[in-house]
């Protein structure tokens, strides 16, 4: 078993936790947490690939690293936007989820 296997299995586990969370969460804050965990899993898969194998003797592949770096910034943008929407929804309707029968 190599580090590569450990980390891509970890990427799969984060995907499982994130997708399950996204399917079951109702509160908007939980939903954005689940989305961020999912994107963490995708980033982990990319970087695990970049760190292994033939090219890695000279150092990891910088292309996936640059992609994930932009991905982290895009993730924080989406998080901020969803949180702003959640605050607005809460301020206007007092609700914190998108389902019809609200839990509050």
């Amino acid at each position, binding site marked *: *078993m*190599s*580090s590569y296997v450990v980390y*891509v*299995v*970890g*990427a*799969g*586990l*984060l*995907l*499982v936790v*994130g*997708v*399950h969370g996204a*399917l079951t*969460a*109702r509160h908007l*804050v*939980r939903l*954005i*947490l689940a989305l*961020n*965990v999912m994107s*963490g899993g995708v980033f*982990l*898969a990319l970087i695990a*690939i*970049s*760190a292994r194998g*033939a*090219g*890695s003797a*000279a150092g*990891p*592949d*910088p*292309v996936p*690293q*640059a992609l*994930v*770096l*932009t991905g*982290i*910034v895009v*993730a*924080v*943008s989406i*998080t*901020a*936007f969803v949180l*702003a929407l*959640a605050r607005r929804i*809460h301020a*206007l309707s007092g609700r*914190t*989820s998108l389902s019809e029968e*609200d*839990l*509050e």
Partner: protein
Amino acid sequence: MTAGLLFDIALVVGLTIIAFRAIHAPDLFVGAVLYIVFGLLLALVWVRLNAPDLALAEAAIGAGITGAMLLDAVRQVGSPARRAPVLTRIGRVAPWAGAVGLGAVAAGALVTLEDRGGTLGEMVRGRVAESGVDHPVTAVLLVFRGYDTWLEVGVLLVAAIAVLGVRRTRVLVPSEPSSEAPPIATAAAGVLLPAGVLIGGFLLWTGSHAPGGAFQAAAVLAAMGILVSLLGRPPLASLSALRLRLLLVCGFTTFLAAGVVGLLVEDAFLRYPAAAAGWIITVIELAVTVSIAASLVLLFAGGRDRAADEAAG
């Protein structure tokens, strides 16, 4: 089994458990704190996978700034919802089945993925000398895949505009300087702010030849801005609408201008003339750092402006 591999396994197991508990914590405040822990563990993973640029960015943006946004949002909308109604067996099992199926397929595909070598990394390393910078990740971000980074700065700009749009404010309303800001925090900020600006500048400078660069520098600067916001003095609020907009768009437009220069001089968008490449990259990085930092502060401060909430009723 080596100690390194054991550490990797412990890290992955910890990451998964923390992620699950963050999403499903009964108290959202605890969930937000656990998410910060998740971000810091992920930063450790990036160190293990030889990606120090990502570790810096993850710790500063993924854990720090995202965590601050979450904690602040939870304070407003975090009243714990009543427990979800007990689901039927199908309602409980189906999400797990779907998620596990997807994760197993993804992990299976990745584990069996053939390592063919001949990666883009070798091409980048072979030609990094032509790019005008010495650090491969910076070369990819600003030269070889300049498009991606340019549009990504655009995404951040759109997000900042969208947050202001949702809040229905054109400028940030300065909240009255908070009298309750604890003196000890103000005093600590007095030491941290200059140090943070210095570290941000250092990260920007070091990015041309070592891990660091515009994103990490901007994240540290934005953290300083958020610190000041938390002390009741939103740093962007004293700016006129015009100046705020200039700060927000200067990164995107400088990048665009450099692209057009490439189009005119070198016949290709975002291809920089070899003689001036180092300078052009430095100017773009400076402008992008300022814009990203301003956008991140706005994403935080724009979301938390309560006056607009009360006005909306």
